[in-house]
């Protein structure tokens, strides 16, 4: 019984050791964030900070972090602090450092001009030593010394300028060159990640608690960087697109709000070129696809989950729908071009695009609706049946309302995909590259009654129509020329508009889901 390790049940006030380790974690985090900023090009690696070039400053800080981290390990190993390290840092950490040091060895020896076999040998020696240093000593040494060494080496090479702002390396065998302003941030990000992890372990006193804190720091830094990349992506498009989107925008005047980019076509007569026809095309396209796919998809899901006997048939349908959802969109486009177009006036048309995208949306609506319907508890069905309510009425008034949030989720995801689809539109409905305002589809006003079958016609549905992603693609391939004053600005504005349209559809879907979820549970 007495072999279990014991540490103090109640930890004392924060010790200087913990404070130092916490500070090291914090500094690693800051270095990580600044490294991310340099990678995204927000700051340059040769910008002067406190009298030093940023890359040199990175080097100094990383060097200091490396030394500090080794110091933490040693302080614990020599028993100056109250920590609970385990006998080994573990096989996962050992494998990770083996890989890291193998790469370091191969890279450094390569830079020194050693041949392939020599590089492999150097890598293997360094990797092997890293494995030994990580796996065999106690955890406090194993998870700090290899980290300190990596940080020291990277920091030193940044300080000395072995890699720095002017550095470049042609990749032999590839038609590419690595530049310092990419490599330095990557090295900094990586090094700060491992020092942050190691310092966090020291902060937690190693052992189970230390590993926990270390995992936290790793996860938070990685999640943070992913979010940064996502936000950066949107921000990039937004910043570039805003001038185009708001060109000629004004509030007040005769029409209260004047937003020529969204309300004008790209014709010669328009003083500010706009995307109105394509915007309207995309909106109608999504509406048409949803109107086609949601009733059919939900209907099929109801049949498959409520009426059909669960077995080989439903299993086969499930596999088929999953496959259909991952079918490349160009294949759907080809189907639309070969099958739908001959049936709708033998030319590219809005309705052919709607149906093609509807076919694409159908599998996802079917899959998610089926999941949502199957997730409705059987108790509701039993309760309804016990009241003598027929199956169809039960489905309509209990099962489907309870499944609506799930169905809405599927439609949201699907709309996000189809609104940005280019290939099917290219093949089935694409209109002009720079359509004038008169080319905008007038679907609501286009309905006409006639005395002979089919009694109702709508020419707007049968005309070739532009859509935002298609227009963007056409602009790029057409070389951004034409009668537009500033094609770059126009294209970025178009991209931002597409992003906003998708976001608006998302918002509508999420609001629907939220509304029905509230209704179900409050």
């Amino acid at each position: 019984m007495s072999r279990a390790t014991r540490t103090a049940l109640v930890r004392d006030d924060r010790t200087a050791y913990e404070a130092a380790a916490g500070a090291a974690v914090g500094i690693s985090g800051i270095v990580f964030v600044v490294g991310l900023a340099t990678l995204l090009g927000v700051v340059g690696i040769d910008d002067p900070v406190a009298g030093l070039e940023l890359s040199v400053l990175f080097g100094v800080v990383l060097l200091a972090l490396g030394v500090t981290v080794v110091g933490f390990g040693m302080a614990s190993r020599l028993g100056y602090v109250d920590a609970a390290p385990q006998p080994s840092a573990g096989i996962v950490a050992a494998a990770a450092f083996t890989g890291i040091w193998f790469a370091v060895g191969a890279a450094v020896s390569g830079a020194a001009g050693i041949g392939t076999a020599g590089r492999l040998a150097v890598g293997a020696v360094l990797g092997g030593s890293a494995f030994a240093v990580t796996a065999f000593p106690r955890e406090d040494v194993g998870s700090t010394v290899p980290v300190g060494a990596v940080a020291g080496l990277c920091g030193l090479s940044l300080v000395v300028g072995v890699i720095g702002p002017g550095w470049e390396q042609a990749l032999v065998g590839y038609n590419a060159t690595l530049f310092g302003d990419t490599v330095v941030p990557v090295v900094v990000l990586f090094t700060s990640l491992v020092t942050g992890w190691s310092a966090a372990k020291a902060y937690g006193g190693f052992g189970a608690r230390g590993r926990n804190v270390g995992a936290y720091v790793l996860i938070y830094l990685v999640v943070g960087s992913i979010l940064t990349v996502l936000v950066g992506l949107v921000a990039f498009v937004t910043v570039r697109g805003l001038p185009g989107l708001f060109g000629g925008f004004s509030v007040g005047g005769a029409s209260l709000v004047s937003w020529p980019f969204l309300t004008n076509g790209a014709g010669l007569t328009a003083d500010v070129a706009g995307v109105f026809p394509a915007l309207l095309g995309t909106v109608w396209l999504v509406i048409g696809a949803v109107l086609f796919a949601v009733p059919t998809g939900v209907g099929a899901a109801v049949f498959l989950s409520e009426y059909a006997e669960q077995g080989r048939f439903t299993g086969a349908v499930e596999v088929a729908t999953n496959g259909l959802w991952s079918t490349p969109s160009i294949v759907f486009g080809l189907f639309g071009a070969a099958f739908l177009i001959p049936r709708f006036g033998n030319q590219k048309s809005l309705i052919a695009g709607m149906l093609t995208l509807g076919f694409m949306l159908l599998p996802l609506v079917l899959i998610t609706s089926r999941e949502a319907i199957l997730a409705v508890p059987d108790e509701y069905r039993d309760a309804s049946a016990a009241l003598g309510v027929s199956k169809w009425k039960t489905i309509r008034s209990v099962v489907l309302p309870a499944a609506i949030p799930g169905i809405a989720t599927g439609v949201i995801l699907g709309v996000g995909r189809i609104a940005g689809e280019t290939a099917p539109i290219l093949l089935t409905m694409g209109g002009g590259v720079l359509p004038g305002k008169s080319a905008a589809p007038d679907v609501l006003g286009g309905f006409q009654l006639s005395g002979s079958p089919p009694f109702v016609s709508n020419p707007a549905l049968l005309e070739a129509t532009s859509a935002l992603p298609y227009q963007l693609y056409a602009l790029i391939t057409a070389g951004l020329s034409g009668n537009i004053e500033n094609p770059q600005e126009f294209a970025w504005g178009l991209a931002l508009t597409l992003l906003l349209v998708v976001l608006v559809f998302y918002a509508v879907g999420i609001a629907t889901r939220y509304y029905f979820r509230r209704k179900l549970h409050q």
Partner: protein
Amino acid sequence: MSQTDTAETTANRTDGEGVSTTAGETVEETRPEWTCHETDGETKLAVGDLDVHYGDDHALKGVSMDIPEESVTALIGPSGCGKSTFLRCLNRMNDRIRAASVDGTVEFDGENIYQDGVDLVELRKRVGMVFQSPNPFPKSIRENVSYGPRKHGDIETGLLARLTGRAEPDREEDLVKRSLERAALWEEVRDRLDDNALGLSGGQQQRLCIARCLAVDPEVILMDEPASALDPIATAKIEDLIEDLAEDYTVVVVTHSMQQAARVSDQTAVFLTGGELVEYDDTQKIFEDPESQRVEDYISGKFG
């Protein structure tokens, strides 16, 4: 038939029917006369030789019993003895389980509900059911109660009904109020009829389910362990309610709790492992002086 039939004749039967042996040990034989219980009231449900199979599993073996109207009949027995299966046969809820096959007869007011042409909607309107765990719909309290009548078209509430002037909001109000009052829930929810039913406590939800069942005006109410998921206070309320309901309805209740059976029921049927009905008699007789040794063992806690 009466229970005063001589026990010896059947005890000495030699055809082996009803006798099973386990590991060489003879198990007590089930005697038909133990289950032939006569009551004063009219028979509401007459079950004749009911067999249920789930695939290869013989869940209920030749059960016959008469359930008198306007009384509480308790079904007790260990887990897996078939009492819930039996209950679900009485409103044909077993039809919903594909693997289940039912043989025998269940006569409701003299008409066999297992013959062709039985309208399940009508049957289940007359034979209502309350489940083990409270299962209100994720709708408002009001909608829960009026769900059955609305779906049966007894109350019209939709947009069309409102437009054509056929909507009867007063009748709906009245029905909801009466049903909730009958289920002893009205006072607790009268001010929040439009709140979601899932916000009620477990005991309130179960009484709401009873109110929902009462709203379609059944003649028989089947309850499958209605209080097993509830705390003692909520259980006591449900038990009071069951006794109260027996004045107007025929109540059949499955329960795990023998105390509950003893408290609320007029007659008790004991099912034992293997899906057979072993003894059926007045509750007092079952609990004080059962004929079967196995029932006595079960009730005193030696078996099951």
